[in-house]
């Protein structure tokens, strides 16, 4: 069994889905639901004669941070790239749904509950989106997760944490964008179409997926933080992510509403201003936009150590 104390200083990037789930909440508080001993496996993979995972590559459960019940979803990139199929998707949907039901029951029973005592959902993304083996079932799972996010809105805050190898791409990039708050490390990546797919569709001149530096300064944590697509940028340790979640967990839902990047006419206005800026600037590289945000030595921001980055970076506002 993973030692929680040992886990805290370790690299979040290197941590498995289960270790992340355990480490993101208070010591000893995590209980896994629909775990590997329940052996809920993908019927599609079995039909195709492919190997299955007893957790279908997604760890779900509940833990606690201080007084806050925390429902955790954690995706494992090592199993088919963290792809989400029917079973994994159902585990995500039901975890969020359970959090909402729990919230409603709790509030009905104890109307004086403080914000700190109401549940939150944390999703640790490591996925390229739909599991292509499961096609429609996987797509449907994405839609159902989105549906639950809408139902949770205004009641149960949903926090995305992104700092694992695969990043959060494809349909799950949409899901991440639809959460209330996004925490990333500089090794995290967030996007819709993955780099390889862009290259395949648009050519190497448009986007060279083998140029990892290009990939990271276009989809990575530092860029997403400057652009405002990520709310928080933290060090690459389990502890740093947990502490950021812990800071957010007791906040009232109104604060989470303010953190959203989309989801209201004002937010849409802001996004449209960003699009207009891109059309006007025609940036050749992410660094051009960083300079536009007021960073004098924008290219230098790529390599400076994390602490220096955080103390000097200027974020884009339109």
């Amino acid at each position, binding site marked *: 069994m993973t030692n929680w104390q040992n886990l805290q200083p370790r*690299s979040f*990037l*290197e941590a498995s889905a289960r270790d992340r789930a355990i480490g993101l909440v208070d010591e000893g508080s995590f209980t896994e639901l629909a775990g590997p001993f329940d052996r809920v496996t993908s019927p599609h993979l079995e039909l195709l004669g492919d190997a299955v995972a007893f957790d279908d590559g997604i760890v779900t459960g509940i833990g606690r941070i201080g007084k806050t019940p925390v429902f955790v979803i954690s995706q494992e990139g090592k199993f088919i790239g963290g792809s989400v199929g029917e079973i994994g998707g159902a585990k995500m949907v039901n975890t969020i749904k359970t959090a909402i039901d729990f919230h409603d029951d709790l509030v009905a029973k104890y109307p004086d509950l403080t914000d700190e005592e109401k549940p939150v959902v944390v999703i640790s993304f490591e996925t390229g989106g739909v599991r292509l083996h499961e096609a429609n079932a996987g797509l449907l799972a994405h839609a159902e997760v989105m549906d639950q996010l809408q139902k949770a809105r205004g009641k149960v805050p949903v926090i995305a944490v992104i700092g694992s190898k695969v990043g959060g791409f494809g349909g799950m990039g949409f899901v991440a964008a639809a959460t209330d708050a996004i925490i990333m490390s500089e090794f995290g990546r967030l996007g819709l179409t993955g780099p390889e797919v862009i290259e395949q569709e648009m050519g190497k001149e448009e986007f060279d997926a083998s*140029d*990892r*530096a*290009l990939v*990271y300064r276009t989809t*990575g944590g530092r860029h997403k933080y400057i652009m405002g697509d990520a709310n928080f940028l933290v060090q690459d340790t389990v502890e740093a992510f947990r502490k950021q979640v812990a800071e957010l967990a007791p906040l009232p839902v109104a604060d989470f509403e303010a953190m959203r990047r989309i989801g209201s006419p004002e937010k849409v206005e802001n996004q449209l201003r960003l699009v207009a800026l891109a059309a006007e600037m025609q940036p050749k590289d992410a660094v051009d936009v960083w300079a536009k945000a007021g960073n004098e030595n924008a290219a230098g921001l790529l*390599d400076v150590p994390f602490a220096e980055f955080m103390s000097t970076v200027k974020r884009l506002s339109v």
Partner: protein
Amino acid sequence: MTQHDTRKDWRTRAADTAARKEAAAPLFAKGKEVLAKDTVALLEAVIRAGDVINIEGNNQKQADFLADCLNQVDKSKIHDLHMVQSAVPLKSHLDLFDNGIAKKLDFAFGGPQAARVAEFIDNGKIQLGAIHTYLELFGRYFLDLTPRVSLVCAYKADRKGNLYTGFNTEDTPVIVEATKFKDGIVIAQVNEIVDELPRVDIPGDWVDAVIESPKPFFIEPLFTRDPANITDNQILLAMMCLKGIYGEYGVTSMNHGIGFLTSAIELILPTYGAELGLKGKICTHMIINPHPTMIPAIEEGWVEAIHCFGGELGMEDYVASRPDVFFIGPDGTLRSNRAFAQTAGHYAADMFIGGTLQIDKYGNSSTATAGRVAGFGGAPNMGCDPKGRRHPSGAWLKCGEELPSLDSLTGSVPRGKRLVVQGVETFGEGRKPVFVDELDAWKLAKSANLDIPPVMIYGDDLTHIVTEEGIAYLNRCKDMETRMAAIRAVAGFTEIGLTAKPEETKALREAGIVKTPSDLGIDPSRATRDLLAAKNMRDLVTWSGGLYNPPARFRNW
């Protein structure tokens, strides 16, 4: 009295060279500079059908512009060229044969073009001379394969033809010396023509023409391994190597072959190596490219000297800042030299450690597979016992002392032996078994009409095999029977491994010929990535104090 020459003219080569240069004279812009647009015309002027031609290129820097230009010459005039070159990793190298410009090939390393080499041998487009090791081929440049025209590359040149090859000097000196001192013609592509060079690596009067290429030459960061991709299993192997071989024999000088196992070893020197108390006792002198994964051990003071075959992209500033360790010129930048590094790796170093794709039941190993003629580059130079070696060292003597059959040929005279180690997981790339009954090299020999199967390391040179099952000390085996049993004992669940007999393996363990992790006192549960001094590229940059500048493809931030 005066002797009469029986031959009328002793300067036919010089005269021929002069005639060729005369034909090219109108193409020179200023001094030795020829403009890029005139390169094809220059090659057509100085090259004749049937010439022996060298295109510089190893597994790192490439005279790629000149290779492209050679493909554009008029093949009705220039054909049947005999290419002699270290490596043929570029498409353009093979296009020469496809286009009917070149006919014969002598080389050492095929790399990414290995499949095309095999195909062209098979369909007759390539007449294969031989597959060499680097030193062997360099030697033949001075014997029977001297280039008539060489197309080399450098970072900078001046208009007198002086070249700055700097960090990536690699093969340039050996090619230029062999060519120029036999009245050949040397043409260099450079990234930049300048008035003053940082230093002169190749004197201008050895160079006939310099061309500023439209693009900087291609260079491959071949020796960079991202620590993020090292597995726990590789760390277990690395622990066994350090304790059971490096520490056991006190190996101070060595070459590390390319791969994740050697990267893992480099990265656990400051952690597990320090815990074993081996600092200062092992790895003090190394013949390697500037591996980024060596940075933590260098920073911790493990290494006294490193000489390099070539440079490694991104390591320029770091290496230049550690002149106590690396070979740095008066201008403050590294000079690599493949010929000297290979010589040191062959004669001066006590150990070679590397990986392979296949090992047969006798202990012969090869990376050759059916349909791919890749060659081995420098591995066989270093992965063999140098019979000409005469200087003793602790590790060399101990390895020789353990050889039970030594007296069968040299009687009572003591002799040392190079440690040649192959570290492999029993199932390698694509879950294919590494231990096999017969090497695929045999199939390749048949399909490509080779006289002998291309073996990378012969069984009589191999002294140790390390797998996740344990270490086989082949140098302690008295005969082929024992050797085959020791190989079986560490071959795991491969078909070879499944033929191991438990009682036989037990006897080998008692005799110290086979040692499992527990025999070595290693707890496999400690073999985790936590032991790595750097877990990713970013950590390496941090260890280097910001001096290491990883190539774009290795950056994950």
